[in-house]
C-alpha cells in the first residue's frame, strides 16, 4: 500500500514535470492559469512566504546595445522578477564616451520601473549623444 502511494506521488510529479507551456512568449499568471500539484491554492501562500523570506527580487538576464539609424546608442535590458510580488524600483543609466568618461546629460535621472511577480520585464534607455559608446546602470528601491 505504501509503495503504491509513493508510486502515485512520483507519477504526479513526473506528469507535472512534463508540462510545457503552449508558447514561452505567453505568460499566464497564477490564479489565471490552471492549478497543478506544485502550484495551487494550498502551496502558493507557502511559496510566497518562502520567496519573501529568502528575499527574492529582480535579476538581469541580458543587456543589449545597438546603434539606431540616427547613430544614437540604445540600451535594452531584459530581466525577470523572481519574487511573487510586484517589484518596484528606480534605475539610472549613465552614458560613457570612448575614454570611459561620463557624458553630462539631463536624461541620466532616476526613472521608475516595475516588474510583476514571476514575470519578465524590459527597460530601454537611449544615449543623449552619438559620442556614447558604453553605459553603466544603477538601481535603487522605489521609496
Amino acid at each position, binding site marked *: 500500500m505504501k509503495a503504491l502511494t509513493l508510486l502515485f506521488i512520483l507519477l504526479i510529479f513526473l506528469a507535472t514535470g512534463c508540462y510545457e507551456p503552449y508558447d514561452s512568449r505567453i505568460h499566464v499568471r497564477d490564479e489565471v492559469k490552471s492549478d497543478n500539484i506544485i502550484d495551487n491554492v494550498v502551496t502558493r501562500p507557502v511559496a510566497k512566504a518562502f520567496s519573501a523570506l529568502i528575499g527574492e527580487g529582480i535579476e538581469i538576464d541580458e543587456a543589449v546595445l545597438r546603434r*539606431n539609424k*540616427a547613430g544614437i546608442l*540604445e540600451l535594452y535590458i531584459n530581466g525577470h522578477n523572481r519574487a511573487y510580488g510586484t517589484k518596484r524600483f528606480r534605475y539610472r543609466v549613465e552614458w560613457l564616451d570612448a575614454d570611459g568618461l561620463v557624458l553630462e*546629460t539631463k536624461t541620466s535621472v532616476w526613472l*521608475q520601473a516595475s516588474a510583476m511577480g514571476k514575470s519578465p520585464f524590459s527597460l530601454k534607455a537611449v544615449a*543623449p549623444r*552619438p559620442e556614447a559608446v558604453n553605459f553603466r546602470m544603477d538601481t535603487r528601491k522605489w*521609496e
Partner: protein
Amino acid sequence: MRARTIQIITLVSILFTGCEEKTTNIDIMHDDGKPVLALDYRDFDQAASTLVQSLLASGALKKEGGGRYVVATGRVVNDTMQRIDTDQLMAKIEEEMLNSGQAVMTSAIGSGEDKLIHDTRKLRDAEEFDQSTTPARGTLIAPELTVSGKIFQRNIRYDKKTQQVEYYFQLKLSDVKSGLRFWQKEIIVGKRGSNKSVAW
C-alpha cells in the same frame, strides 16, 4: 518666585526650539525625500528624460543628407492648477536637443525668442552705432521644425480619504514647411494622496 518663572520660560523656549524643523539642502542626485502631490523637480526631470529619449530614438531629428535642423520652441500650455513656468520642462529638452548634435534651437522666433535679436536690428539707422557692426538684412534663419506641447492635470476622487492626481505631459515635433507632425509623446505622472493635501 522669580527664579521659578525664569526656569519655566527657559524650559518652554527649549521645547519650542526642539520643535523647529531644520532646513537642509536637497541631494538632487539621490533624493530620498517623500513624493509630493504637486509637481516637483523630480517629476519634471523624469518627464524631460523620457521625452528626450523618445525623441532621439525616433530618428525624427536626423536630417536627410546630414546637417542640423533649426528648431523653434512653440507654445507649451500649462493647463494644470499649478503656477508652472513651462520653461522648467522645455529648458531641459532644448538643452538635450542641442547637445545631441542633431538640432540647433533658434532664439529669433517662438517662445524662446530673445528680444535683443530684434532690438539690435532696429539700430540700423542709429547714428551712435557703427553700422558695419549691426546685422545685415536677411541673416536670420527660419525654423524648419517646431516643438510645442501641453501639461494638464486631472483630479479624481479615489476614495473618502484619498485623491488621485494625474499629470499629462504632451510634446510634439512638427515640420514647418509641410505642417506634418514627425513625432509626439505623452508621459503620465500619477499620484495618490490625502484629500487634505492640495495639488496646486
